[in-house]
C-alpha cells in the first residue's frame, strides 16, 4: 500500500506554542484517516500543514512520495472542506463548485457539467443557481464537499465538517461521507473531537494531545488497547485504573484500562472485589452502573434483563484478567 501523506518528525511552533510537536504519521492511500483530540491539540494545524497553509518549522512532509514543504497550496493535489465551509458569497452554487476548474482554465460547458455531476454526487441536484446565503447549514456543507471533490483530489481534508450540524443530520452525513469515501477511493483525512464519530467512521485514528500523537491505530485497537491514560480517558468510557489498584489485584504496578462491559457483578467469593453502587443509568439496551471500588470510581455496563442493584447497595465485582489492558505508561 502506498503512503499518501507522510509526516516525519514534523513540528509547527508558534513562538513558544508547540501547536504540532515532532509528529510522525503515515496516512495510507485510500484510507479514511481520523485525527482525534481535544480542542487545541493541533489537529487543525496538522491539516493546514498538509494543505500547505502552514509550513513546518522542522521535519519532512511528503505527499505521495514527493517532498511538499515548498509546494504552495494551489499546486498540491489536495483539497479541503473548511470548518466554516468558506463558500464564495458572490458566486452561485454552480460557480462555487466549478471554481477549481475555472481557475485551471477548463471550458465553461465542461465545468458546468462537472459541477452538476458533483452536486448530484452530494445529493444536491438543481441547487446550482442559488447563492450560498440561500442555503441551510447542511446544504452549504454539501456544496463545500462538491467544490472540493470536483477537482478529483488525491487527498481530501475535512476539518470538523459535521461540527455545525444537528445530531440527526450529523448521523446521516457520517454514513454518507463514509459511503462516498469508499466509492471514490479518495484518501480522507478527517478532523474531529468527537470520539464516537472517529470510531464509527475511520479506518485508522490518530489521537492528538498537546501537539503530539499519542497513539495511531484502528478504532478497535484504540478502543480496546489504549496505550496511555490520556487515550483511554479521551476515547472511551473505559475505566482507568491506577497502578496501586492494579498491583493489588493483578500483581503488576502499571496503569491499566478496563472496559465497562468487562466488569461483572458476582456473588461474594475468591477473586471478587467489594464495591458500592453510586449511581445507575438506564440506557435502553443496557444499564450503566457507577461503582465505588476501594475509593476509585469504576463504571460497569449490565446487559438488559439483569437485576439492577439499588444505589448505595454493597455488591461484588470481578473481571477476567485478559480484559484488563495494561498500558505502557508506568506507575
Amino acid at each position, binding site marked *: 500500500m502506498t503512503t499518501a501523506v507522510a509526516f516525519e518528525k514534523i513540528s509547527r511552533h508558534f513562538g513558544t506554542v508547540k501547536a504540532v510537536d515532532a509528529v510522525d504519521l503515515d496516512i495510507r492511500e485510500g484510507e479514511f484517516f481520523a485525527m482525534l483530540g481535544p480542542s487545541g491539540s493541533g489537529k487543525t494545524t496538522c491539516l493546514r500543514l498538509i*494543505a*500547505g*497553509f502552514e509550513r513546518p518549522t522542522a521535519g519532512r512532509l511528503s505527499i505521495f512520495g514527493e517532498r511538499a514543504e515548498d509546494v*504552495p*497550496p*494551489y*499546486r498540491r493535489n*489536495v*483539497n*479541503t472542506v*473548511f470548518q*466554516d465551509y*468558506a*463558500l*464564495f*458569497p*458572490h*458566486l*452561485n452554487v454552480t*460557480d462555487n463548485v466549478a*471554481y*477549481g476548474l*475555472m*481557475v*485551471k482554465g477548463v471550458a465553461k460547458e465542461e465545468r458546468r457539467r462537472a459541477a452538476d455531476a458533483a452536486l448530484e454526487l452530494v445529493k444536491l441536484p438543481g441547487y446550482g443557481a442559488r*447563492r450560498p*446565503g440561500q442555503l441551510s447549514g447542511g446544504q452549504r456543507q454539501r456544496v463545500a464537499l462538491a*467544490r*472540493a471533490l470536483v*477537482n478529483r483530489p488525491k487527498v481530501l481534508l475535512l476539518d470538523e465538517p459535521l461540527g455545525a450540524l444537528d445530531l440527526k443530520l450529523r448521523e446521516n452525513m457520517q454514513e454518507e461521507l463514509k459511503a462516498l469515501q469508499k466509492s471514490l477511493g479518495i484518501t480522507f483525512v478527517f478532523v474531529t473531537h468527537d470520539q464516537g464519530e472517529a470510531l464509527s467512521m475511520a479506518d485508522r485514528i490518530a489521537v492528538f494531545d498537546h501537539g503530539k500523537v499519542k497513539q495511531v491505530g484502528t478504532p478497535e485497537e484504540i478502543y480496546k488497547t489504549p496505550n496511555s491514560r490520556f487515550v483511554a480517558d479521551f476515547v472511551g468510557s473505559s475505566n482507568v485504573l491506577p497502578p496501586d489498584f492494579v498491583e493489588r489485584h493483578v500483581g503488576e504496578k502499571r496503569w491499566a484500562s478496563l472496559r465497562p462491559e468487562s466488569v461483572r457483578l458476582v456473588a461474594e467469593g475468591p477473586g471478587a472485589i467489594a464495591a458500592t453502587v453510586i449511581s445507575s443509568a438506564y440506557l435502553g439496551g443496557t444499564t450503566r452502573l457507577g461503582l465505588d471500588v476501594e475509593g476509585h470510581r469504576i463504571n460497569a455496563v449490565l446487559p438488559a434483563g439483569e437485576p439492577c442493584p439499588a444505589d448505595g447497595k454493597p455488591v461484588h465485582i470481578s473481571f477476567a484478567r485478559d480484559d484488563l489492558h495494561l498500558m505502557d505508561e508506568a506507575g
Partner: protein
Amino acid sequence: MRSDRSSAPLGLKIAAAAGLAFLHLPLLLIFVYAFTTEERSYQWPPPGLTLQWFAVTWNRPDVWQALGLSLKVAAISTVIAMILGTLCAAAVSRTKFFGRETISLLVILPIALPGIITGIALRSAFNLADIPFSTWTIILGHATFCVVVVYNNAVARFRRVSGSLVEASMDLGADGFQTFRHVILPNIGTALVAGGMLAFALSFDEVIVTTFTAGQQQTLPIWMLEELVRPRQRPVTNVVAMVVVLVTLLPILAAYYLTRDGDQIAGSGK
C-alpha cells in the same frame, strides 16, 4: 434587511415631516433665487423669474476656473485615497500585528478631528517644511479625510473576504493573482467604488481645510464664499450652488445604492 412594516404613530410622522421641511426648504430657496430677476439682494418673493443667469454663469471664466480646480482636486485626492485607503484596509484586516487597533484609530482620526484643526496642522506643517501653497497642498489636505472614507468602506468588506475565503481559493488551485481577481476584487469592488464616490463628494464641497491649504487658487466652494459679499450678479452663485448640489449628490446616491445590500454583490455573471 427587513424593514419594519408597522406604521409609526402620528406625532412621529409630523415630527419627521417637520424635520424634512427644515432640512430641505432652505435648499429649495437657493434653487428659486437662481431664477430671480433681482441681482443685488435676496428679496422674497422674487420680483420676476428669468433664465439669464445660466447664460451669465456660462460666460464667466472665473467660474470655469474654480470648477476645473475643484474637479481636479477632488479627482486626484480620490485616486490617492483609494490607493492608500485600500492598502491600509488590507493591512489592518488581513494581518494581525502589534498595534493594529491603534493604527485603525489613527487612520480614522482625521475625520473625527474638526476640519479647522486639520487645516491649521497642515498649514503649519507646510510652512515648517517650506512647501509653497499650491494645488498640491490642497490635494494633500483633502486626501487626509478622503483616505478615511475609503478605508472605512473597504475595511468591513476586507474582513469578510480575509482568511478562509482566500485560503479556499488557494486550496482550489488559484494563485495569488487569480485569487485577487476572482475572490477579493468582486467582494470589495463595490465598497471601493462607493468609498471613492463619497470621498469625491466630500472633497468637492470642502471649505475649511481648503482655506488653510490653498494659496491664491479658488476652489468652487471658496469662490462661492467670496462671491457672497459682492453685490453684483448674486444669482450666479445660486446657479453654481445648483451645480455643486448635483455634482455631490449623484456620487453619494450612487454610493448609497452600491452599498445598500452588502451581501448581494453584482459582478458575478460568469
